[in-house]
């Protein structure tokens, strides 16, 4: 998308057009430039980070039982 010839659609929120313009002048990725130029409320940012952290922990918790069962199975086989 670095050479995108057309401005990306406008997002929700408040954007710094001068930053988007500077990116367009330098042929940077405009989708990324629009995302970076969009103001995100600190509370929303914190909520998004918290949700991402919770999702990562949940994914980790789902992975952990699988790793724990393998040693247990090995131990069991040795005993028998």
């Amino acid at each position, binding site marked *: 998308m670095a050479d995108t*010839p057309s401005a990306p*659609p406008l997002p929700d*929120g*408040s954007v710094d057009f001068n930053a988007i313009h500077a990116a367009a002048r330098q042929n940077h990725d405009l989708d990324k430039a629009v995302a970076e130029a969009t103001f995100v409320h600190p*509370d*929303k940012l914190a909520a998004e980070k918290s949700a991402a952290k919770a999702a990562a922990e949940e994914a980790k918790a789902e992975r952990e039982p699988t790793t724990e069962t393998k040693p247990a199975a090995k131990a069991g086989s040795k005993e028998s």
Partner: protein
Amino acid sequence: MGLKANKTALALAQQPIIDTFVQPSASTEVMPVSNVNLNIQGVTVQNEEYTGSIHRNGNEVIGKNVTLSFNVYLRPPAGGAVPGANAFLPGRILQAAKFTENRVSTAIPAAPEAIGANPTTSAVTLGATAAATASLYKGLLVSLASIGATYAQRLTAIRSYTAGKLATLMETLAAAPTGNYQIVPQLAYQRSISETDPDPLSQSIWLDGLRFDLVNMRVSGLRINLPVSTRQQGALPMLEVTMTGTIQATADEATPAIPALGAVPKFRDGDLWIAGKAVGGSSLIIDLGLRTAAPPNPNKPDGSDAEELVESRTTITADLQKYRKAQFDTMALADAQAQHAVWAQYGYGPGAVVSVNVPDARFNYRSPNIGQDHVTEAGDLFVDAFDRNVSIVFPF
């Protein structure tokens, strides 16, 4: 002692998280509004049980539906410069109605520079500093040095922009422009057609010492009403807003003082251009045609999730003078169903101009009205779902 209607005030804050009320400041986030109507409508269902007699039990009260409607006179932001992100209070309402707040804080280029080759009366190629990105400047205002003597006269709206830097205008100039151009600093609210829901608002409304706190407030109706001020009569341009949401709490608290923001720019001594023609008329109304709905959810206290925008269908109603066929043939325009620009602009100096534009709209058939001194013509134009299809711009 009764509560006095004049002691009504409204404050609003952006609410980044659904269901989490943000208390608006009663000093810095209170704004002047008019014609406030807080409508608390009880929702009931009939009790169908037999009672063994002709007498029936009263209805079951299910809940309440809350709408808040008000008008905001259309004034540019105070302060003489493009404000910071989300600082312009009416802009928060526009953002909640899916307008993007596009802040051009610094002029492009910093000093006016020469336009490109081969300008015409309807298009101009921007110069070296302009970016070669199609649609980048769509709906924004450009100042062309040769087209007027004053700041406001030099401003014109960009209907479309190509990767070849060709800016097509919404007006037909008297002569092809010469000299310099500059995209002046401006605060532009431009309609986004992205799929996401914008943040709702938290609002507090005071009715002479009684405060209602409203949460998850969505814009369920928005009209940009631009009545023309004439020698005989006048009216003030305004946003007509309806919001729908939930009552968070109530409290007794003195109504805060509302700052006086000065005179409202009047729609006259400006521009009303439709399909490349300067046309006379008495009003221009852009209705965003918003509709919200609340999905059912028994986990919530009132059985519903927060309101969401579910539809928007933009229509322009223009009450215009009737013209002869050779001047402005609206029937032919409706027959052809091509896209045409609609542009209204008024006011004078930097920070005192209001510019509203729709780059593409199609004519419906219009009917002449012969009942008054002059023949007029009322009817609609339809706006399709294009990005940046409505812009409200405040240049500095």
